[in-house]
């Protein structure tokens, strides 16, 4: 059995419907109208121990709600979840020992206390021995630079520092599975890299990871599986490599030439590709093609025969481009095979 199993997971909310303005609010006092919104509708998910899964989707797609359902914070309207055989919202305490949760937009640090005290409180909650606690702090210090944060009162931490401390909080008890909801939100490049390095390390150590993010750079090095959700439904569940292979096949070769050529001359040479002229008219071109039909090497060799090549730049679409197209509705992903 998989470590995490969710079957037909659904959550609907009742939302008050008010007319605009004071009048609307007043009217709502006497005439209550509600509409039902489905945040998550029939999600099936199965995660094996040791897997790292990226859970992505546009704003309001139902990502955070799914995380709240999976961690037991929110009770599903219908459907079921099991983590390691436990139903999270029914066995909250037992379940909380096997999961770690980080909400990038919230902190679990006690606002008025030094980071050290928050960690000590968690140590007592999870019943860690003093030795184990020290070992964990040392480990976090190595990757997250935690030591310098320990004496600082939580409200005085910068966002990046706070996130580092929060990661330590979420992972202090060595959970079997960790849910990270936007762990790099609002962070600068340096801290982001640090967090990503930490995620890679976690994965290498065998921790099961479920990661939601808007920054797809977070997932490229860590996750081998991607689940895309939109409108509360899973629209893709499969390997990241497969998504890229299937939907990110386009390559663009940007060329700067030593001599002049026309678009037609190049287009004739590469009938499978699309050729466009660049800003510098007849000395700059972009050749776009499907990597299954043509290779960058063949393009370069072909161009070299008719003109001197000065500069070359090759663009490979990031997973980001694929997902952007999905969000925009330009690309309909076929059902991927679950790895």
């Amino acid at each position: 059995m998989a470590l995490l199993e969710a079957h037909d997971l659904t959550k609907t909310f009742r939302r008050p419907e008010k007319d605009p303005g004071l009048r609307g609010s007043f009217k709502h006092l006497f005439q209550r109208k509600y509409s039902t919104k489905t945040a998550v509708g029939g999600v099936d998910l199965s995660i094996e121990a040791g897997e790292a899964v990226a859970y992505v989707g546009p704003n309001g797609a139902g990502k955070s709600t799914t995380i709240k359902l999976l961690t037991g914070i929110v009770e599903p309207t219908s459907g079921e979840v099991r983590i390691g055989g436990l139903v999270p919202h029914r066995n909250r305490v037992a379940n909380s020992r096997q999961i770690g949760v980080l909400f990038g937009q919230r902190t679990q640090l006690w606002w008025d206390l030094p980071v050290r005290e928050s960690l000590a409180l968690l140590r007592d909650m999870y019943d860690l021995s003093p030795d184990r606690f020290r070992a964990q702090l040392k480990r976090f210090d190595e990757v997250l630079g935690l030591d310098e944060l320990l004496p600082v009162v939580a409200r005085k931490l910068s966002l990046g520092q706070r996130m580092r401390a929060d990661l330590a909080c979420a992972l202090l008890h060595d959970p079997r599975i960790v849910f990270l909801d936007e762990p790099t939100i609002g962070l600068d490049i340096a801290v982001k890299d640090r967090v990503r390095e930490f995620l890679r390390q976690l994965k290498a150590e065998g921790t099961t990871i479920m990661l939601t993010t808007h920054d797809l750079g977070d997932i490229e090095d860590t996750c081998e599986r991607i689940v895309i959700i939109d409108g509360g439904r899973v629209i893709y569940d499969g390997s990241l490599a497969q998504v890229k292979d299937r939907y990110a096949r386009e390559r663009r070769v940007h060329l700067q030439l030593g001599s002049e050529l026309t678009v037609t001359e190049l287009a004739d040479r590469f009938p499978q590709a699309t050729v466009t002229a660049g800003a510098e008219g007849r000395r700059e071109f972009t050749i776009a093609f499907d990597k299954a039909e043509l290779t960058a090497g063949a393009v370069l060799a072909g161009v070299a025969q008719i003109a001197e090549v000065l500069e070359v730049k090759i663009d490979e679409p990031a997973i980001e481009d694929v997902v952007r197209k999905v969000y925009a509705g330009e690309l309909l992903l076929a059902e991927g095979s679950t790895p």
Partner: protein
Amino acid sequence: MKPYRTMARNSMQSTFAFRTAFLMAAVAACFQLVATVALWSALLSNGGSIGGFTLPEMKAYLLMGYVTGWLGNAIGEWVLANRIRDGQVALDLVKPIETQKMMFAQTLGGLPMELIMIVTVGAGFVLVAGPMPGPSNIPLLMLSLVFVMPIRFCIAFLTTQLVFWTQNFHGVSWARNAVGAVLSGSLVPLSLMPTWLQTTAAVLPFASLTSTPALIYLGKVSTPTAYLLIGVQAFWVVALWFLARVAFRAASRQVTVHGG
């Protein structure tokens, strides 16, 4: 037990971090005490009594009102309410702890600061306010004071849960404080109220907060009645604790989902 102890210690530490706020609260409390003593002095200047209270007795009553007003109040209910409103409570739900016990531990951590406030301002009051009777039965008084904090916590925790539905604590807090001030007897002794209000107070837990310890202090009730009133306090602690527990189970289903 250990995490709750640590929580109480952390909470104590945070009250000391806000010592300036408590200093200001102390000044405000002195001001209010002086004003109410002046009011009662004017009303009772001819040496008579109102509702069975002479001026010295009324001063002692006000002192008890001040003392009981602090118990369980240093960690304001705002701390609890904000935890719900900010969605922090969601994080408590993924910890191997019970939220209610955790918040109680947090409230308990405020006790040292409360005692400091009680002793400093209270001692000043005794010195300045003039003659007043001492407690008539110290063990019984102490016993009844022990119950004040848990009862206040349960009431606060229960009303705080309304935030799950209202998303706003102002209204809830104002309403509860206004009702509480009257029905606990902290504004004026309950014996000065119309009968219907006294009856209402008798069936609600608020009187256990101020009226009971104050009446025991002054010896206004016989010893058997004092035991009965303390029994009522104990009943409220148990009843409210379980009521709050059941309510929280229902309320936490209301955790709304912010941000998709």
